[in-house]
Structures are given as C-alpha cells and as structure tokens.
C-alpha cells in the first residue's frame, strides 16, 4: 500500500473523513476542514514524511476562528516603482539581513524589502539570543548542518560586524542518581557525533554555578554554546549590507507577483512594482505566503509562539551562562530548543521560552499563564527563580514547517527563487551559514544570464556604536573631551549617553523610533523600562530628525506617544 493511502487511513481513523491527503509531484497535500487549530497541526505532524516528499502543504481549512491577515505598512507610494535589482531579498530578519550582506560580496544590485518599520521587528527580536551548540539535533537534518557551520562562524562574523558575542557555554543539568548515570552515557554519545562536551559531577558543576538547584546531580557542559544580541546582529548585518550598497526599503510589503513560464517577472509592493532577476524568500512566518505568490509552495508554516521573561540585573547575578535542565519543557519538546535560563549578552537572565501552537502569525501578546508556566519549569534549574524580579516579558512566533526543518534551496518549480524558509531555532545560530549558501545559490541563478563576479570593493568591517560605559576610564574620558555628548547620561539604568543615542540615529539603516533606539543602544532596557529616559530619547529623536514631538512613534507608524499640545500652549 502506498504511503499516501496509509496516511489517508490514519487520517480517517483520527478525523473521520474530514481530512484527506493527496500526493502530487513529490508534495503531500492535506485537505479538508477542522475546527480546532491543534487538530490542524496534529494532522500535519501525523502525515509529514520528509523522506518521501519534498514537503507537506497543509491546506486544511480552519473553521474555528479567523486567521488574521498579514499586518501591512500604512504607507503607499511609488518610490520603488520600476526598480530592477538583480536580487530581491524579502524579509529583514536575521536571515534576510545576513543573506543581503553575503550577496553584497558579488557584483550584483540588491534590494531588501521589509514590511515592518525597522529591521528585526518580529521573530528575530523575540528570541533568546542563544548560539546553539546543537545538542538535540539529529544527523541528516538540514538545520543540524547549518547549525554546526553557523556556530563555527560566530567568532569571526561578530568580530567583523562589531557585535558583542560571548562563547560562554551551556550546561544541561540532571537531577537524581539515575539521570546522572544517563548524563554520563549522554556524554559518550556526543563525543561520537558532536558537539564538544564535558561531563561534570555535582561538585564540579556547583563550583561553576553555585546558586542552582541543589538537587542537580550532574551536568553536561557544551563549550561551543554562546550568547549574542539577535536583533543587534541583524541590525549589524543590515548596516554592513547597506554600507556595501544594498538598498534597504522598510515599510515595504510584497503584495503580489507575476510568474510566467516558471519565472517571477515582477513583484508588486505597496511602494511600487519591482522587476527582480532573482527573489530570495526570507519572509519568516510568511514564507509560505511568499512561496504561494511565487507559485512555488511545497511547504507549510505552522506558527509556534514562545514567551520569554527578562530579569533585573540584580537577580541575574545568580548565574553566569546558559543553564537548562534535562526534562524541562524546553528540552523535552523535540523541536524547540528553548534556552532554559540564559545569561544574555547584556547580563540579564532570560527565562524561557515555552511553545504554543497558534494560527496567528503575528500574535505578540503576552499572557500571565505563559510566563508562570515557564517559571515553574525553570525552577527545576534554579529554585529561587522569582517572577517579581522580572523587568519585562515578550512573545515571538517561530516559523516551523511540518518537517520541523529548514527549507534552504532553489525553487521547486519556479526557476528564479531561493527559499530560506522554515527557520526556527536554531535559526540565529545557523543564519551566517545559511546566508553563505543562499547567496551562492542566487549567484548561480544569476550566472545563467550574466557573468557574476565577486565585489572587489566589499568591506566586511562594520563599526558599531561606541559603548562608552564599557571603555576604560581614560579612554572614556578622552572620548567625552572630544564629544561631550558621551558625558551626558540619558538612560541611568543602563548608563547610555546622549552621544550613543545620536550615533544610533545616524547610521546606514535609518532609525527614528523609541524602540529602534532601544534595540540599538539599550535606553529603556533597564529596570525603569524607559520611565525616566523615554521622554528624553523622544526629544533627542525630534531634535536629530527634525520631526515634531507628536510625530515620534514608539515602534511603528501609528504608534505616536503624544496626542497634541496642552491647552495653555495652543495657538
């Protein structure tokens, strides 16, 4: 009996004829109607087979709720009308930005479009910042391949892009005697297939992380793990891309495409129609929609939401790197490598994330039960974890495929598209390596119609914003004497000066929002959450951009903070 027939029987048994499967051209399609989203996802996970098919497309109609449409930019104009880049990158997350920068190593014209008002606004900014060693990846997975290669690239890429990166390692902790035994054998497994690992007995572990749960009996230490600012790296990639001639168009959403004879001939956006030679799909949770427009849809994305909590610096002194426990939700769920407790690059403890299937691709709301769930789980690692130490929490949505693997390849049917889709954890780790391969695929496609040379003038080096408080005192003093703005502290929690904020506003990727400044130089990331510095940052943005105070947005157009002058000063 064929696989498809068998799957149909299984689906019938489970969903009673409401769902059927059919195969065509090495793609398995699911059709039917279900009123529970969890069932829609379950059907996909039940039917998926990455060996027999290039992908699974889940076309089961969900009748239990309304799937919200993609949020679109407010602006409509024609500034991009007629643009004819060699490469059009769709999506300004970590993957799209890294690809744009790698493409700039070739002598090609590149346009990156991002529908949000800034780089790294969605999944990339809602990430735990872990550079994974690849603990729970299985040989044969595409993501394992890119995770290994990406991990090795981090030291150099972060040096080139002037982004702080700390290879601080990760502990996976085991409780009880039996599990200590398991850890010992686990170590032998990793010694065979990687990543690098050290087995630590209880005493050795507590010498390094003395404040963790005393019930921990052993730990595995993975020295290749590290931490980075995910949005910091994405912005750095984008700035370096822009410095090397990549055009970045924000507030730009892809609305439609024309495809003729298997070739995308034009791409319609809210800012005009573009005529690219090659299209790169790095659209995150919307990668399936882009693939559909390109008539190259052979995979489906089922969004999976996760919530992270950030603790105050004071409470973060309890631990030094990434510590997770074997058997917590984050390590047990096979496809979501949540960090557990992560000492971020900015020295806050991050607690999270959880994993909840959702049909809303842009549901960034938080809920108390998700935060509580994560804290309960992570108390296995640190029993003293207290929700009262939280200074903020946030949610992101992972762009998982049913194969639970990355899709990094040229189009299946359409000739001039390259997909970088299905990127979820460990996407941040993998991004540098994905970008190298995808840019090469794009160059290969282009070379069918013209000779593609390398870009001789490519400059891999980006200079980041000076972090004045991290300089030694004489150097900081000299900097202030040269530019007094570095001596005026605007954000007292994180000790950020006016000079750093002004720098953030005048870089190769424009930034004109409170959150944009926050993600670049951290005012508002501290314990007062911008209560004191928010109004000051607002005034600096207005001064530097020439806008009125009332025009300044928190994060995106329509998100103005102020609503008009008070009575006394009205004309």
């Amino acid at each position, binding site marked *: 009996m064929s696989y498809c027939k068998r799957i149909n029987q299984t689906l019938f048994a489970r969903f009673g004829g409401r769902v059927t499967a059919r195969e065509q051209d090495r793609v398995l399609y699911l059709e039917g109607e279900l009123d529970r989203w969890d069932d829609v996802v379950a059907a996909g996970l039940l039917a998926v087979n990455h060996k027999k098919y290039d992908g699974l497309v889940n076309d089961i109609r969900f009748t239990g709720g309304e799937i919200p449409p993609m949020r679109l930019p407010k602006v409509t104009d024609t500034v991009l009308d007629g643009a004819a880049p060699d490469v059009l990158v769709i999506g300004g997350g970590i993957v799209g930005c890294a690809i744009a920068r790698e493409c700039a190593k070739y002598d090609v014209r590149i346009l990156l479009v991002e529908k949000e008002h800034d780089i790294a606004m969605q999944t990339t900014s809602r990430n735990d910042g872990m550079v994974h060693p690849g603990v729970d990846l299985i040989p044969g997975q595409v993501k394992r391949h890119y995770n290994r290669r990406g991990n090795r690239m981090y030291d150099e890429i972060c040096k080139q892009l002037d982004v702080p990166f700390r290879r601080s390692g990760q502990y996976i902790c085991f409780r009880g005697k039996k599990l200590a035994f398991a850890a010992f054998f686990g170590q032998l497994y990793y010694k065979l297939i990687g990543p690098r690992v050290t087995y630590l007995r209880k005493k050795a572990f507590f010498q390094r992380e003395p404040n963790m749960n005393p019930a921990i009996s052993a730990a595995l230490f993975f020295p290749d793990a590290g931490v980075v600012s995910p949005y910091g790296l994405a912005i750095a990639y984008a700035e370096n891309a822009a410095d090397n001639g990549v055009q970045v168009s924000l507030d730009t959403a892809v609305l439609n495409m024309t495809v003729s004879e298997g070739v995308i001939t034009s791409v319609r956006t809210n800012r005009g129609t573009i005529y690219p030679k090659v299209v790169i799909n790095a659209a995150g949770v919307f990668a399936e929609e882009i693939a559909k427009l390109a008539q190259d849809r052979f995979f489906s994305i089922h969004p999976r939401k996760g919530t992270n909590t950030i603790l105050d610096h004071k409470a973060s002194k309890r631990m030094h790197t990434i510590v997770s426990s074997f058997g917590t939700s984050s390590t047990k769920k096979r496809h979501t490598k949540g960090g557990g407790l992560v000492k971020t690059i900015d020295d806050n403890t991050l607690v999270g994330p959880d994993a909840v299937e959702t049909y809303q691709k842009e549901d960034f709301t938080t809920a108390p039960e998700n935060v509580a769930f994560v804290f309960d789980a992570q108390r296995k690692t640190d029993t003293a974890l207290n929700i009262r130490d*939280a200074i903020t929490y946030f949610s992101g949505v992972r762009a998982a495929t049913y194969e639970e693997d990355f899709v990094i390849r040229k189009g299946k049917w359409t000739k001039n598209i390259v997909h970088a889709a299905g990127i979820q954890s460990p996407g941040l780790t993998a991004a540098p390596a994905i970008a190298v391969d995808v840019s090469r695929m794009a160059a290969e496609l282009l070379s069918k119609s013209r000779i593609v040379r390398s870009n001789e003038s490519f400059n891999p080096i980006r200079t980041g914003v000076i972090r004045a408080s991290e300089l030694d*005192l004489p150097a900081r003093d000299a900097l*202030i004497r040269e530019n007094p703005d570095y001596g005026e502290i605007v954000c007292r929690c994180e000790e950020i000066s006016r000079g750093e904020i002004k720098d953030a506003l005048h870089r190769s990727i424009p930034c004109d929002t409170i959150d944009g400044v926050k993600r670049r130089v951290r005012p508002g990331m501290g314990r007062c959450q911008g209560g*004191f510095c928010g109004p000051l940052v607002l005034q600096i943005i207005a001064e530097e951009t020439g806008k009125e105070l009332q025009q300044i*947005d928190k994060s995106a157009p329509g998100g103005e*903070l102020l609503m008009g002058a008070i009575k*006394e000063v009205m004309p």
Partner: protein
Amino acid sequence: MEELQFDVTVIGAGPAGLAASLTADKAGAKTLLIERETRPGGILKQCIHDGFGLVRFGEKLSGPEYAARFIDRLPNSDVTVWTLSFVSAIQREQDDSILTVITREGIRRIRTHALIFATGCRERTSRQIGVHGRHCAGVFTAGTAQYYTNILGELPTKRCVILGSGDIGLIMARRLTLEGAQVVGVYEAKPTPSGLTRNVSQCLWDFEIPLHTSKTVTRVFGDARLTAVEIASVDPCMCPIAGTEEIIPCDALILSVGLIPENELAESIGVPLDSKTKGAVVDERNETLLRGVFACGNALHVNDLVDYVSESGEIAGAAAASKEKKCRGLVPVECDQSLLYIVPQRISRNAEMQERVFFFRSAKDMDNAMLTITKGGNLLFSKRFSHLRPPEMERLPVLLTPEQLFGNEPLRFHLEELDHE
C-alpha cells in the same frame, strides 16, 4: 585623573538632596551636590499642582515654588553644584568614598568623607504588576505622563484609564481632565485608595472622576497604539476573577501603582537595605550601617509629604557634616505586622538628643488604635491614634532616655485597634 576632595557629597538634587547639602554647608562642611538632570529640583520640577510646604512654610506652594525656596539659597551658600553629572561608580576606602562622576566636561573622581544618598525613587512599571497583552504605545507611568504634560506641554492621551490610586495617579487624573482629556476612571486593585484622602477628594470627587476599587487592568489591546484595556474585579488575594472582565476603549493606560526607592548605587557599596521600605537601614541621624554613608528622602522610604523629605535631608546633612564619630551603640527598632514599616530601623544609645523622631505607616485602616513601644517586655511609650491609614505616614517624636535604651533587646512597635467605647 585629578581627584577632588569634599567633606560631604550629596547624590541627587531633589528636595532631600537640596536640604541635605544646604544644611551640611551651613554646618561648615565643604559640600558637593551632584544632579544627573539639567536643573536641580528633582521631581518637584514637574509637580505644578499646589499643596507643598503646608507643614514647613504654612502655605500651599507648587512643586517648583517649593523647590525654589531651597534652590534660591544655593548661590548664597558654598555648596558646589554639578548638574548633568552622573555617579557611575563608588568605591570605599576605609571610611571615605571615592566617586566616579561622568560629566559633559569629562570624568571626575571625588573623594568624600561623608556620602549622602538622596537618589529618590522610581515608579513601578506595567511589567512589574503583570499587565499583559500587546506591547503598544500608550502605556505610561503617571510620572512620565506628568513629564510629558507639564514639562513638554504635550498630552500623552485624549481618553485614558488610570490604574492605581497613588497620589501621582490622582493628581494626573485631575491634570489631564483640566487639559481636556477624558479620564474614564481610576481603578484600584486594593479595596481602599492608595493616595492621600485630600487628593481623592480634590482630584477625583471635585471632577466627577469615578474611582473603582477592587478592580484591575488585566490586558491591553492595540497594534501600534493602545485601543482598549480589559478590566477585571479581583478577589481579596488580588487575583482577577474570571467572568468579570470588561473591555474599555481608550488610547492610554496610566499607571500609579507604587514607588520604589532607588538604591542600586547604595547597594553597590554594600549598604544594607530594609526589605519593608526598600530603603537603607538607618539610625536616627539617617546614617546607614556603613559609617559615613547616609540616606534621606524618598530613597530612604517613600514619603507622601515633601516637607518630611526636606526634614530627612536636613537630618542627614547635619549628621554628615559633624566630624565627630563616636561609637553609636545601635539598638534595633522592629515592628510587627500591624505596621507597614518603621524608620529609623536603629537608634543610637549614645545620641545627645533624647527626642527621636519615628516615621511609620499602619498596615491597614484603623480607628482608635493604640501604638506601643516596648523593649524587653517593658512598655516605654504608648499613644492613641483616632484614625490611621496606610497611605498617610505618621511622624512620631518620642523621648527616650539612655536608661530606657540600655541592653540589646530591640525596640518593638505594635499597633492595636481598641474597642469602640
């Protein structure tokens, strides 16, 4: 880097720091006042409502007028004032403190004999009280909304919900109403308002702004800007009751849900804090458990009247300026659950003055309550209060003789409601 020397250095030029530095200067100490903002005055700069100074000056002043009473004395004093100056780090050398100060002119190092923390307090944020939903524009703490309105002359809202009935929230309810914004209501999770009675009456009742107690905001809605909030009733444990949710359309949520003394700098040099006040543990001279380090004003405990903040600064300033440093012989001061807190948390057996001034708040509303101070089972003092409310701090002068303070047993404060006669 050159090192400058001062007898007394005060961090923060709000009402506490101004009073402390002027008093230390008057006592002959070479005094430095460090302020991170462009002008002295602290939060008073944005408090344009009246009611300041009733206790001290016998008149109702606005915040800036009250601050001016002190700021105007600075030019005639020898206090060195540095504005736009930020204390980045403090080290201790014996009993001296070494400060690293960031200024627009460069980095300066200060060696000071006495150090006074007058660092004020900050507002609790929406995250600390667990407001969930979308992270959109339109969630402000009341103090930030006050800055926008009174300093920048810009309204942060046209129609808002205020969560928390702290004094700033009540004052902002009135202020925004006067400016033409609509305040849908003030919501308070506790069964009673958190602010002063006079503020509830003058800011809400006089403007017909509804106050809803035992209700809280559970979620906010909106995309780029807030469009609505969800309100729910809470049970006595402050947990939202399912089924009581109600959606209120508005463009902003303004929070007045508590103030936290700012003591991160003090903590960095190991000043022990009181978990009840979140301020330093001090003796009656406002000296912390570290010799030569003092704390005053809202950094010490959150006050409801600025007059007491100034008094607290003066106590610290005078003590910091006095060169004499005899053994303090500290006696612990404790309170049970009938009080929210007591300040000071220590008193010196060897103090010259026999009058000690205590500040406390009752844990709940009490009518006809008896306060007792005991030590080792002996009743040292008692006083009857006809009415006590947690939002209203009590100032209590008590005469205590060295004989009464003999021995290491703590002084215990206790409140008990008497039967109505």
